């Protein structure tokens, strides 16, 4: 550390720590410059934290690990995990900057998170905010023209430092004031992550590499199911249970006014049981099979159709008939004997 450039007061930075490589490196760079660093991590409900695996019993031996927690452990810093599920709805439903390829409101999301970090910084007497953003790495939120938008709309302005690309960007307050040495920051840009990977290897850092990204809203299949939910309701709204249920089971919409959520194995059936008090549920009574939730409004003939689909997914699917129990949330139960929907005749367009 150059004593000529550094302030005597130890400055404090809050790092948006996702658990991925870039924010891990950004935090490490601040620690190496003598900054007091604490991490902040926001839980939106759409974060990919292995929920599907956590539910499915066949894979549940692989423990779920919250990536940011374990990044914080490596760094030896505190981590503040904050539930923003309710506040985040406005970001998803009304993004000022629109969506990316699917339902990912990346610019609004980043602005929201940096804005929340700014509020936290002010409330806790910290000096600046650090992110792992890299110029040009993401098509929406990390462009040269959108990085300033995030700084401005979050209210962070020049207290937002991006150490991995800082030397390609105008100097921020921590750099101008000499709290950090700009010369020791980086000039990374683009999607090539080899420099970051080399830095992690050199520093002995382990990091998460989520195969499908870190947010379900970037997932085409998930986004299709969420759009279907809104279309079926005639309005764009969701609650926490809605977005959790979209992660679990097969989603089949035989009619516009109802859909079926079919457990794929025992763990998912167990999970879906927790929703029996909210939805009509169906299951085969005399043979093994899934628990099926019915979401929406169902007439009598719809119940027969739902029972036939339930029978199609049970072990007795090749039998002439299967007896299916249909239970209403209030507890009323009836049994219908139905012909299983032929295995190869379930219309593909019913699958969400």
């Amino acid at each position, binding site marked *: 550390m150059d004593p000529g450039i550094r302030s005597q007061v130890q400055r404090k930075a809050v790092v948006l720590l996702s658990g991925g490589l870039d924010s891990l490196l950004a935090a490490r760079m601040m620690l190496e410059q003598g900054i007091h660093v604490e991490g902040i991590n926001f*839980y939106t409900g759409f974060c990919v934290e292995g929920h599907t695996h956590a539910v499915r019993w066949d894979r549940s031996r692989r*423990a*779920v*690990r919250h990536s940011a927690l374990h990044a914080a452990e490596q760094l030896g810093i505190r981590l503040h995990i904050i*539930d923003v599920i309710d506040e985040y709805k406005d970001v998803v439903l009304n993004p000022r900057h629109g969506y990316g390829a699917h339902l990912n409101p990346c610019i609004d999301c980043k602005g929201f998170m940096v804005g929340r970090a700014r509020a936290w910084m002010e409330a806790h007497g910290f000096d600046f905010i650090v992110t792992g953003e890299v110029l040009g790495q993401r098509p929406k939120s990390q462009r040269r023209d959108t990085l300033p938008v995030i700084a401005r709309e979050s209210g962070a302005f020049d207290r937002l430092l991006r150490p991995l690309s800082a030397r390609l960007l105008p100097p921020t307050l921590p750099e101008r004031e000499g709290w950090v040495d700009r010369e020791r920051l980086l000039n990374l840009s683009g999607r090539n992550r080899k420099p970051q990977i080399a830095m992690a290897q050199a520093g002995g850092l382990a990091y998460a590499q989520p195969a499908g990204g870190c947010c379900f809203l970037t997932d085409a299949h998930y986004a299709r199911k969420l759009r279907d939910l809104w279309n079926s309701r005639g309005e764009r709204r969701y609650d926490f249970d809605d977005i959790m249920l979209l992660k679990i089971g097969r989603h089949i919409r035989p009619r516009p006014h109802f859909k079926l959520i079919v457990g794929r194995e025992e763990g998912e059936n167990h999970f879906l049981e927790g929703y029996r008090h909210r939805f009509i549920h169906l299951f085969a009574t005399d043979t093994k099979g899934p628990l099926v939730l019915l979401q929406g409004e169902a007439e009598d003939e719809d119940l027969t159709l739902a029972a036939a689909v339930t029978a199609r997914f049970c072990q007795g699917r090749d039998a002439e008939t299967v007896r299916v129990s249909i239970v209403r949330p209030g507890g009323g139960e009836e049994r219908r004997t139905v012909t299983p929907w032929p295995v190869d005749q379930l219309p593909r367009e019913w699958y969400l």
Partner: protein
Amino acid sequence: MPHLDARHLFCPLPVIRVGERVRTLAPGDVLTVSCTDRGALQDIPAWCRLEGHELLASRIEPTGEVSITIRVHR
């Protein structure tokens, strides 16, 4: 003994709820937590290490639920 029911919550919500509950407790208090997400077996102890709380016990019950006991240290 204070108890937190974090069953049917998925990572990181059990950790968030534990943090909220611990803030209402005094140093020395012991909190037990019940979870169904086995990721809690890694995550809650990691959180305790970062926050300076003591992990007294963690185990999987015969029901399959995770039970974790911690002592609040600050």
